């Protein structure tokens, strides 16, 4: 028995030493190798625009066309009967709601922050403009929506719904902030092909915002 105990102690010690010395580095492999952890504003902007255009020019345009009486369901089809008959269950716009908040609006907020952090405030300005646009159409369709407590991740998992009139006021402020971020200095960096709408022409962006 004595012989055995003589070995147990050093062997156990080895295990413990091994464990403490290498595990930390060995186990530090939990960064996703398939997707980047950081991106630049130039890479964030294009999907924000594409996604906004896809929703506004797609499903939202269809419902708008029907409810403003410009469109009607053809007599041989039935795809849009629910719109045509104002029988829209509460799930109909789930996809658009989900994508505007979790894809478009989240990315707008990040764009606004990253634009300034990286010395490209024109990207920030477009971030504010597109955020205002998405919230504007959301509240047009749904009325009261989460705004002031929205987009905070787990810090607020049930953001309350703000009144539509309050949101409209806040959106004007948001656009004003965006306009104030526009950088026309000599060193200004303008978006290019990554701005699918105005190719970085900040005068046109400002014009749109002033008129809306």
């Amino acid at each position, binding site marked *: 028995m004595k012989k055995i105990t003589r070995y147990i102690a050093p062997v156990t010690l080895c*295990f413990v030493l091994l464990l403490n010395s290498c595990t930390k580095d060995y186990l530090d492999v*939990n960064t996703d190798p398939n997707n980047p952890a950081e991106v630049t504003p130039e890479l964030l902007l*294009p999907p924000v625009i594409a996604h906004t255009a896809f929703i506004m020019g797609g499903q939202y345009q269809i419902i708008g066309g029907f409810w403003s009486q410009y469109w009607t369901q053809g007599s041989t089809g039935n795809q849009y*009967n629910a719109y045509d008959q104002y029988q829209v*269950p509460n799930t109909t716009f789930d996809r658009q709601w989900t994508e505007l908040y979790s894809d478009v609006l989240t990315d707008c907020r*990040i764009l606004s922050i990253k634009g300034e952090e990286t010395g490209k405030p024109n990207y920030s300005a477009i971030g504010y403009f597109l955020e205002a646009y998405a919230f504007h159409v959301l509240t047009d369709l749904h009325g009261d929506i989460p705004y002031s407590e929205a*987009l905070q991740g787990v810090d607020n998992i049930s953001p309350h719904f703000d009144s539509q009139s309050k949101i409209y006021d806040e959106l004007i402020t948001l656009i004003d902030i965006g306009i104030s971020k526009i950088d026309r200095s000599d060193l200004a960096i303008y978006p290019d092909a990554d701005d699918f709408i105005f190719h970085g022409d900040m005068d046109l962006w400002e014009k749109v915002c002033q008129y809306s």
Partner: protein
Amino acid sequence: MKASVLIGQNVNDRKNTAQVATANQLVIPGFYNLSNVNGVPTNSNALAIRRLWGIYADVNLAYKNYLFLELTARNDHSSTLPLDNNSYFYPSANLSFVFTDAFKLSNKYLTFGKFALNYARVGKDAPPYSVKEIYASPSTSNQAYTITDGHQNVQIEFPYNGVAGFTKGNVLGNPNLTPEFTTAMEFALDLGFLEDRIGVSFNYFNNKSEDQIIPIQLPASTGFRAQFVNAATMTNKGIELLLRGVPVLNKNFKWEMSLNYSKVDNNVEKLYGGLNQVSIGNGTTFVGGDIVAAIGKPWGQLLVTQFLRDPEGHVVVDPNTGYPLTDPNDQLAGSVLPDYTAGMTNTFSYKSFSLSFTFDTKQGGLIYSRTKSTMTFSGTDPITIYNNREPFVVPNSVIQNPDGSYSANNIQVDPFTYWANSGNAVTNVAGENLIDASYIKLRELNLSYVLPKKWISKTPFGDVTVSVYGRNLWIKTAKDNHYLDPEVSSFGTGNVQGYDYGALPSVKSIGGMVRFTF
């Protein structure tokens, strides 16, 4: 008295690498090379690494071959948990006592008797990459992020016109994940009677799973769609019973039989953030419904839109049109888990022939069936020939009067609109597309023949057995289920159960087998 001690170290290093290149249009048919493509092949690669570093100790004590005690302890460090808090410890203890040996109880009637008490705690880590957030490209190889309206071939993918793009991942990282633990207590009794011709095994267990790591859905207004969290604590209490017997045994003929029964009561005790219910569908919601965990109820509740009903259960219809109204609030319709499962196997052996068959059954539980919804929509479901497809009054329906009371409805509706052609049509109301998941199945039938020894005496084989078998040959489903085999799940074995998204019918298989032993 015997004792053995084992100390060990376990390193588990798993690396999955997938490299996929797909091409749709070949220029020269039959020539399989990526250069032979009209267009650009789609490429993607996926990597996943997870590492686990554990030490463990195992002590086995045996006293006179009838009293056994096993104690184990283990400590793991896992790469999938937050780096500074990735260590977790779990022990177990098993005590078993063969009382027939200890007290010399064996006699003609009672052959063998043993009871066991087990306690085990088991820790489990998280899926890889659930601690930090990512950015994702809405590309063809990243389907979860392509910009689409849900229809095929209507989507935007990046790079778009040569412009690359990334979007913030929709799953929020969780730097506060801790391991989940299951604590299991078990009592087991094994008895053998009449020289082991009859055997009984009985198990009672009481398990508690704490801090289960689940991707719970977040409201999109948080800016994200899901997060892996330590979301739920639930208990599983239940019994398992196994009876086996040999009713007939003589020189040439043997009939063996076994029966098993298991019943588990599952209860969700605690949920993330003090919520009463969380979605566990990981984003795979279906039209008008979701799969949730709700406090005080069994796991996997179907939360669905339903027709509005009066207190007596009649369908409330629109007083002007006669079509059913839907309940403004989604309702919990019941669990996808069964009430009990049972099975029976019989084996008849005559000389070298053996015939065995196994039935099993699952009773209770619900399925949302997209197959039913689709068949209702297209009119291939026999329920749609109600009233010969002539206008009818919605069966069992009432109208709510302005004073709140209910009165009988006599407004006729158009069958096509009722079944298929409106937002509130049967096909679109998830609660109308739930079916009972119960079934009885002939799981397996097997006939085998062991070749006579003298035929193979000159070969190197010990035994040669030839058999034919059939699996899944017969099924009886619940009365309201003429749609599908309830065992199908369109989403594998994860949390999303009880959900048929137009699943393919299950397969009957018939086969033959030759088995050699040496």
